[in-house]
């Protein structure tokens, strides 16, 4: 049987930081890009 609904969020309310973490990104404060190579705060 065809499901009644298609859930684009797969039942989870993913925040910005969860999305980026799942992608393996290690951005500064989760979603900030800094100038240069190093993203993380030294």
């Amino acid at each position, binding site marked *: 049987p*065809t*499901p*009644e*609904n*298609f*859930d*684009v*969020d797969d*039942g*989870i*309310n*993913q*925040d*910005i*930081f*969860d*999305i*980026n*973490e799942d*992608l393996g*990104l290690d*951005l*500064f*404060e*989760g*979603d*900030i*890009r*800094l*100038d240069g190579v190093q993203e*993380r*705060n030294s």
Partner: protein
Amino acid sequence: ITGERYRWSHTIPYVLDDSLEMNAKGVILDAFERYHLKTCIEFKPWAGEANYISVFKGSGCWSYVGNRHVGKQEISIGTNCDRIATVQHEFLHALGFWHEQSRSDRDDYVSIIWDRINSGKEHNFNTYNDQESDSLNVPYDYTSVMHYSKTAFQNGTEPTIVTKIPEFMDVIGQRLDFSDYDILKLNRLYNCSSSLSFMDSCNFELENVCGMIQSSADSADWQRVSQVPGGPENDYSNMGQCKGSGFFMHFDSSSVNVGATALLESRILYPKRGFQCLQFYLYNSGNEQDQLNIYIREYSAGNVNGTLTLVEEIKEIPIGSWKLYHVTLKVTNKFRVVFGGIRGSGSSSGGLSIDDVNLSETQCPHHVWHIKNFTQFIGSPNVNLYSPPFYSSKGYAFQIQLTLNNSTNVGIYFHLISGANDDQLQWPCPWQQATMTLLDQNSDIRQRMSNQRSITTDPSMISDNGNYFWDRPSKVGALAVFTNGTQFRRGVGFGTSAFITHERLQSRDFIKGNDVYILSTVEDISHLNSIQMEPIISSITDDLCTKVSCENDGICTVHNNKAECRCPSGEDWWYMGERCEKRGSTRDTIVIAASSAAAAFALMLIVTLVSVYYTRRKYRKKTSSNTTNMSPENQHAF
């Protein structure tokens, strides 16, 4: 971020990269509309300015902080980032905002539970001192769209951030819309005093009734009251919660003859964009024959008294409850909005009342789903609500479903349904963006934090059973029945089960007077699909352009059956040459002009010096030959 060098101008040039998902493109444009409504920051397509924001689909959702002056500054709106509040968040970074909990006074308001943070992620909870970051004298804001949620970077299930006021535990990290303090900070940072699209908001709490005037060309007046014996018992702004306040405007149809009119005119308004949306709440305690006419009094050079034009007649106004109305206006000259109450036939023991008027230069929602007595559905098992059938501007029939059967989250889904125009429509349904908004019914449109989600129909999307997902509902949909017994077919719903939590739904003014409003707009966004816009041209272009490569971001186009490079240019720079390989700038031109002038001067100087030299030499020769024939006396006399 501290430092004027990080600021943008009030108008920010942007580019929506082709890599973006179609839904994301529409959501980004919606986010810009929220900026236009609540701030003085405007976004306009890039036209060669030196610095601009390029939004593209990268991995994840991210941005730089402030204007980095790098020319093309990127923001990534990747998969699952196509939500309006996420886009607002990333653009606030680009405008110079850090996260709210990194403020220097953070520890006064929240506790960071360090041992619950994922190992190595502690740096995400740093704070900045007031030399690096300025909170602009605005209080700490739990409701900010820039705040982390309580679960950010957690290593288990326990929260990493605990608010010192427990009521805010689930408020932090909400991504609804700009908070009041977000707006205050942004407007302070950029010295904003007005916005592009906001015009007026009036809840009639002040005695000056927002500068509205009673017309002299009518037979009755509107009155500012806080209750009417025949109803309503209280206003809509405060729902009677505050004694001594809570006013609205009332036209008493019971005290005038049939056909009597009362005109209430707004102050003079000056449009910028040429299209407006008027929203207000209306209550009828008179007769169903009473009606409200909306007029525009438009002023022009030739008519200083203004021309009154009827825009909409609102009839059959339900008796005994407040109801939200939207009226679309298209005014380009200075104007007033005029509310015209008209006494209909039949008995009346009350009249018409209006409250919470908002006027903005935005598009009105296409459809309004008014859910009455909403709280009865909360907590009931297996409650899923379907909206009445609506038609999009292109003619597609659709329904919205609100799922309330989950104990934590409320879901929202968009369904195509079989409709009267299906034979004339394109299937599978291409690039229609459905925007569904749970309205925060704050009386002031600028303070609303409505919850919004958009989905877009992708005609190539395939269901698990192999059908096109957005194919004709009569072909791929399931049988369903309207409450009047009419059968129809409903396609699979597309949306989210995590639209909003029950807790959030019962916050703010999402439920007001036990009523909920879901606003919906379905519009064709295929024009945002650059590939689909010109399919034939693009295929020819592709063929001829395969042999041509343009350098420096030049774009290959076909002109007179010949591939050519269109080179990028800015205010004071440009690329040129067959492949855009050469760079030019006004500075270069100045240098060339200055060098030429200097060379010409040098040449002239040399010629002059040589001339002087030879003239003097010749003269000396002549003089010396004369001297030999002269006596010393003569020489002295000379």
